[in-house]
């Protein structure tokens, strides 16, 4: 490291185009990563839960539909899906709608495509976790719920899903961390999230070590917060005596 000149003060210097500091850029990168990941996660969780339920219902058609969704979204590379959402889908929509999309601010287009892409991709993975969670308890618990006169939807709502979600919290944590990592692909359609911002900081500030260290720490902190939050949730929803009684 002989000749390297450390300068952490670089974050408070103005960027070449002016009007912002490198710190502002860095913060914007963090914000976009969080925003895209959080919005994508909301879609993934809601849709994944629904699809996971469909994977386990008696109707063969509904099960088949959910299975086809999973195969489709799991087997096309994420990057390809992103390009499809950003470049291809607006062309396939009715002309008026497609034109409206193409006429909207680029940043909005990028954000919507990025969020949809990450959300729908991750939903396929969440779906499989939810399915596994339900299947691990469904045999006896479904019959118990139905035997009491609960309808099938009530049995899912009050009996199967509350347990299934508790069981799959650890793998869901991994999926939440995955979506944050995967969010870096959205830089390819021009959204300057954290990983892309790292590149930009290096290019403009000429202080590559500071830039990469700061970005790495930001990713670590985000992951730590997510893990901590999920641990807290696991703890909050722990059932007294359940682990002891688990068969």
């Amino acid at each position, binding site marked *: 490291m002989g000749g390297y000149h450390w300068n952490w003060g670089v974050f408070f210097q103005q960027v070449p185009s002016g009007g912002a500091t490198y710190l502002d850029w860095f913060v914007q990168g963090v914000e976009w990563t969080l925003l895209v990941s959080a919005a994508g996660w909301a879609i993934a969780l809601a849709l994944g839960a629904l699809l996971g339920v469909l994977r386990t219902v008696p109707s063969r058609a509904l099960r088949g539909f959910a299975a086809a969704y999973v195969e489709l979204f799991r087997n096309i590379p994420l990057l390809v899906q992103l390009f499809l959402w950003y470049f291809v889908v607006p062309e396939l929509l009715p002309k008026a709608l497609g034109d409206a999309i193409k006429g909207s601010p680029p940043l909005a287009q990028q954000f919507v495509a990025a969020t949809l892409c990450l959300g729908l991709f991750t939903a396929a993975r969440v779906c499989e976790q939810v399915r596994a969670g339900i299947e691990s308890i469904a045999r*006896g*618990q479904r*019959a*118990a*719920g*139905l*035997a*009491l*006169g*609960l*309808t099938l939807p*009530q049995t899912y709502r*009050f*009996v199967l899903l*509350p*347990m299934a979600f*508790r069981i799959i919290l650890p793998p869901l944590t991994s999926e939440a961390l995955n979506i944050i990592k995967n969010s870096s692909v959205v830089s390819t359609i021009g959204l300057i999230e954290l990983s892309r911002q790292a590149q930009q900081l290096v290019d403009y500030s000429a202080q590559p070590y500071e830039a990469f260290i700061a970005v790495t720490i930001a990713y670590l902190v985000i992951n730590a917060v997510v893990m901590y939050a999920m641990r807290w949730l696991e703890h909050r929803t722990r*059932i*007294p*005596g*359940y*682990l*002891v*009684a*688990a068969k």
Partner: protein
Amino acid sequence: MISIRNVSKWYGSFRVLTGCSTEVRKGEVVVVCGPSGSGKSTLIKCVNALEPFQEGEILVDGVSVGDTKTDLPKLRARVGMVFQHFELFPHMTVAQNLTLAQVKVLGRSPQAALEKGVKLLERVGLLAHRDKYPGQLSGGQQQRVAIARALSMDPIAMLFDEPTSALDPEMINEVLDVMVELAEEGMTMMVVTHEMGFARKVADRVIFMDGGTIVEDAHKDAFFAAPQSDRARLFLSKILHH
């Protein structure tokens, strides 16, 4: 109360039940026994439509179970069921297990449901455990809660599928005692069990199944005195002398 008429069921090409017919009258206790895999569980699950069947007819209090127009949740709410592995809802307290269906299915107020639940817990001797979770109870206690949960719906009949086979020996009697009391109060019961002491004490009839058919359907005394078929004789001698 429960009429099973010529019921046959297939799992794919495998025939699980073949032409099963029997009748459980109001207030009657019928014990179903037979070797493992003979179709006992399948038969009683057909009674409350937890399993569909392809041939024959089952009537519960005059309502056809197989009829596509039958409101199955409503029918099931009137028939209590107790499972081998208890199947309490692990994420709910004992009290919540007892009130969920009363409120969601019968539309009782939470207040009324809890009152009912408390009464039943008292009856099975578990009132002190009302705020515990199933995982904090012994197997025998869990099964008594499961019986109380089924009773909370004021069922017209009760189905039991090997209610004591998952229990440690020292807990079997606390569950059987509750069932005996229920039988003596006149509950209509269809009980899959190998507890022949229970059958001797409270059963009216004993049904012996083998290979998906009802091989024997006899008054208790006749069944224990002299089973008609070799298969039933062999089965009895095995479970009575182990």
